């Protein structure tokens, strides 16, 4: 059975697209045929993060409007042949998406793919609503910061009441917390909310913590999802997240300060 994963947050700029690209690549690398869809119509960015911006011909809206077939619009990833990208339209706005149209495209994808990752736009308007409406699982991307935590809580309320599963009285969407841009040293100094603090407030199943990392900018600069940078902390954190999602038990590696003894001693 195919599963639809929405990567959502409410608040903008917290790392949804970075996360969508990383986990879609991670799932595909683990042998699962995966599609990743950019729901940010008008502000498409997933193509850049995936490094396929020059290969975009047709987009999600073209498929919904039947101006192109799904196969014409899907772009096969250059690094992994089990991964496909469905870019957003850059010239339309979010009203170009309809519930019926999105449902139709997802149904077609479900026949051929194991995982369908939906990269949600920020906000709680139409684009964000449609990105989460058909989801089976939700990855709630949150930064350890007051406005992000509040918006995540708001999003949880919507997942529980305004999704297809909620409306049809099915099993609720599985919700997972992904805490990103985490700085263990700042947490230690009491300057940043800790994982436990955020968990106390949101009470969500923690899928993983992604540290604040320079490797994320490097990855987006070069158009390769950060999970392919296997030496980087963020890349490893995303690989752990994918493994946990697939049912493996992995210890959390990036919650504690990893600095060496001497740097610790002198507060480096």
């Amino acid at each position: 059975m195919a599963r639809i994963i929405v990567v959502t947050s409410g608040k903008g700029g917290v790392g949804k697209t970075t996360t969508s690209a990383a986990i879609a690549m991670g799932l595909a690398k683990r042998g699962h045929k995966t599609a990743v869809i950019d729901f940010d119509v008008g502000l498409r960015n997933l193509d850049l993060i995936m490094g396929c911006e020059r290969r975009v011909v047709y987009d999600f809206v073209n498929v919904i409007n039947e101006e192109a077939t799904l196969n014409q619009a899907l772009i096969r990833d250059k690094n992994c042949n089990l991964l496909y990208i469905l870019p957003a339209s850059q010239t339309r706005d979010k009203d170009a998406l309809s519930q019926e149209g999105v449902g139709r495209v997802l149904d077609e994808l479900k026949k051929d793919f194991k995982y369908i990752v939906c990269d949600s736009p920020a906000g709680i308007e139409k684009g964000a609503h449609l990105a989460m409406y058909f989801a089976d699982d939700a990855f709630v991307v949150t930064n350890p910061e007051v406005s992000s935590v509040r918006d995540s809580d708001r999003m949880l309320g919507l997942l529980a009441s305004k999704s297809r599963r909620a409306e049809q009285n099915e099993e609720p969407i599985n919700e997972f917390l992904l805490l990103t841009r985490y700085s263990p040293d700042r947490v230690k100094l009491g300057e940043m909310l800790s994982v436990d603090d955020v968990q106390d407030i949101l009470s969500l199943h923690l899928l993983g913590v992604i540290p604040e990392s320079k490797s994320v900018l490097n990855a987006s600069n070069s158009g390769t999802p950060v999970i392919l940078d296997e030496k980087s902390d963020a890349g490893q954190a995303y690989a752990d997240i994918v493994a946990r999602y697939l049912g493996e038990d992995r210890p959390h590696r990036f919650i504690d300060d990893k600095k060496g003894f001497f740097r610790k001693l002198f507060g480096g």
Partner: protein
Amino acid sequence: MSLLDYFRISKVGTASVAKERLQILVAHERSSKNQPSYLPQLQKELLAVIQKYVNVGQDAISVSFEQDDDQETLELNIVLPDHK
């Protein structure tokens, strides 16, 4: 804790303040999420009626909405001024 941190005058970080504020806010927003949208208007009109008879202030009345598994209740609280 680094050695230098240890000697630094310990200042309380702002994270604990953030957590406290969030806990209060989130609890409030969760409880008011399902409340009917007519509630503020209802509260305003009730206040106007009560003020015709009793001299009460703006904050003398509170209306809250609660939802259990099988029933919804509207709780109305009016604090009358004490007169000696």
